[in-house]
């Protein structure tokens, strides 16, 4: 399998991104289509329609202040074109206190319809039921997974895990209760797998380990696992592929969140040594891997840097948001003609022990 991407393909992807960006900028900063937040912003800053003509110009924006997603009413994000249309309110993962919210109408469907083309019928048979075991509630993922299943002619069972509750338990050092809660979640999934025919599973790495120790997933009918939510070191990926799924079940790791959407991973090759690389759904979202101390600069390929996210859809514009993640910048790899992010982990993971993966 060839993984190299031609310079022409890379150039074409850049041109496509620039054209998409111009369209999105024009949309969000024109009074007839834009949202109150960005139109107000333009009054005290600059007019991006005049100054942004290629993705390189995005450096003219400062980093997006994500507090505004928490502090402002969601209506300020409604583009004029969508005015009067009820919107979905999606909230970020494990935040306690007032959460950050992103509104949307159809973006999640676009992302997950596209993702459906990246998973095989062998692992996720069309018409075969899915089970989602993980954070549902106010998260975009809940609707997205159901949409993905539906796109493939399938329905989906849901077992909820509330990461905010788990986070509280851990900060209160109620580890036993956290374990009981996790067992409660896994028990419910085991019951579904025992009594219903399910072939596709979405879950998080920790929950996958817990369910795989309780249920022989292959014997239970599972043929594909779509996994996300926390970082996965290469040895953890290898553990999942070889020990939990025993090479018999397809494994699709993904990186994503409410603000970006879904970055799919390229299929693992032996030379990857289980190191996963994800590619953003460009041009709707663009990931840059930046020098944490000079965020205008990207790091070289193979170097660690901080993840910077740009979300560029008609429903939501978010320039240069610094994620709380760090990653290895990876070169384009077929079928993606843009940069990838490898071995994503919480920002500062090498310096301090970060509690993540509560689910």
């Amino acid at each position, binding site marked *: 399998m060839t993984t190299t991407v031609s310079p022409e393909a890379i150039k074409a992807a850049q041109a496509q991104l620039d054209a998409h960006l111009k369209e999105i900028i024009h949309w969000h900063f024109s009074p007839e289509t834009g949202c109150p937040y960005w139109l107000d912003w333009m009054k005290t800053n600059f007019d991006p329609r005049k100054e942004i003509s290629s993705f390189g110009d995005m450096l003219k924006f400062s980093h997006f202040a994500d507090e505004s997603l928490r502090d402002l009413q969601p209506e300020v994000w409604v583009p004029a074109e969508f005015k009067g249309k009820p919107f979905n309110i999606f909230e970020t993962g494990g935040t306690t206190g007032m959460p950050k919210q992103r509104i949307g109408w159809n973006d999640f469907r676009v992302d997950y319809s596209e993702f459906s083309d990246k998973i095989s019928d062998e692992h996720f048979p069309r018409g075969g039921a899915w089970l989602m075991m993980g954070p549902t509630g106010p998260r975009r993922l809940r609707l997205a997974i159901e949409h993905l299943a539906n796109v493939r002619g399938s329905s989906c069972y849901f077992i909820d895990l509330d990461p905010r509750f788990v986070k509280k338990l851990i900060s209160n050092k109620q580890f036993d209760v956290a374990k009981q809660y996790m067992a409660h979640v896994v028990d419910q999934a085991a019951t579904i797998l025992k009594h219903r025919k399910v072939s596709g599973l979405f879950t998080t790495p920790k929950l996958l*380990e817990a369910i795989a120790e309780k249920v022989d997933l292959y014997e239970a009918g599972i043929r594909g696992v779509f996994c996300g939510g926390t970082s996965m*070191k290469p040895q953890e990926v*290898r553990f999942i592929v070889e020990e939990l799924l025993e090479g018999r079940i397809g494994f699709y790791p993904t990186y994503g969140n409410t603000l970006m959407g879904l970055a799919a991973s390229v299929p693992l090759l032996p030379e990857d040594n289980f190191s996963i690389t994800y590619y953003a759904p460009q041009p709707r979202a663009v990931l840059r891997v930046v020098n944490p101390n000079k965020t205008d600069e990207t790091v070289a390929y193979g170097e660690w840097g901080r993840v910077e996210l740009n979300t560029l859809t008609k429903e939501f514009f978010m320039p240069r948001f610094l994620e709380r993640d760090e990653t290895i910048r990876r070169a384009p790899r077929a079928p993606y003609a843009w940069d990838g992010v490898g071995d994503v982990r919480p920002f500062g993971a090498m310096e301090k022990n970060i509690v993540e993966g509560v689910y």
Partner: protein
Amino acid sequence: MNVPHIPVLRLGRSYESLDKFEVKNHRTGELMATVSSVNAGIIRKDLGKLAAARASLKKFTCAQLIELSAKAGEHFLNGTLPFGDKGHTQTAQQYIETLSATSGLPHVMVKRNMAKIHHALTNMKTVLNGLSRGLDLSIIDAGYGEQFGTKLTFCPTTQALGLVMPSNSPAVNSLWLPAIALKTPVIIKPGKEEPWTPYRLIQAFIAAGVPAEAFGFYPTDHDGAGEILKSCGRALIFGDKNTMAQYANNPAIQLHGPGWSKVIIGEDCIENWRDYLDVIVGAISDNGGRSCINASAVVVPKYAAEIADALAQKLGPVQPTTPEDPNARLSGFANVKMADFIDAQIDDSLKTPGATDVTAKYRNGPRKATFEGGVYMRPTIVLCDSFQHPLANKEFLCPYASVVQVPQSEMLKQMGYSLAVAAITKDPGFTDQLLNWPEIERLNIGPISTMHVSWDQPHEGNMFEFLWKRRSLERGW
């Protein structure tokens, strides 16, 4: 030549992980080996296969396994054995050099530890005879039999013995050696700075003919260690007071915590205290003062100041040497932070009135010393005015002891738990009190160092009784 890599041993299968840690020479920083490390999930998965591991040993009789243990002892002491999975081998001398370089133990002490392990392996019959109180081990093979005029039946308490090993002293591995002859697979998490001894022992057993399926060697993290303790059925853990507290009251876990071992001198022998100085010095400082059976307190009814001063004169001038020096008496610290912590804790506790560092005046230099790139803690004798002083009943990973003066009638009540006690007394009344005192695990009566070990007697628990339990059996046919 490439650096050796120590793989995980998964009950007969060698496994190179993508997660590895490095073990380095504590003095030069030279990389000695990389060691594969796995998560708790892999251990959990393998523990599901223990029945096969146990079956691999069940094929042998105890007598055969005792013979194989003796052969393993010879391989361990003298053999050239596989060293990792990259084609390296390890001679006995290379083992000594590697262990010394990473743990800080000088060669002479490594050799003494090797001799102890060799002795335990080559005398396994005697060891098991002592632990089982003379049981005919063919009864274990058959599951039942008759001896001592009674019917005897034993069943295993566990599928495997779990071990969360320390890095401080290789001879602690002697504790698990009887498990193999008792047909019990071992699941070992090695100490981070000392993977060498359990790995070499496993290779020695395999070279002797014991099936590789009987051995699990899992360098792992805190969660993995917890999994071994939780899931093996029976496990040993070594650690400090806090670690011990977590597992207290769990009969499936045998705790090996601080020893708080002591030398006590009775009123009847105290006038001759000078005669026992060498025994006391050895009890405090042999093996670099790293063992739980090193004395950390000397309890006397009179002459505490004089005894402390005499010990300080002998121990205070002891200095670091090269690891190869046959007269080396101090161990280096692979973990320099540990030396910093000990030094700071002693200094801090000395601020509490009632204690004096008697060694200070004979040391001519700081307690924490650097020599040829290594960090060492020089011997420290502290005279304490009572057991209430924070330094009176403390144990550190170096030659350290308090000297406390207590009337003989108060000694046992005041000194608390002791793993090993050398009681220098001929007084029948006091001896009787000592024999009946439950807070002493190992009792040596007379001038016998606390460091004297007989592996055929229990050490913080009886390994035979830990792995096998007697039950009733009636057979109709």
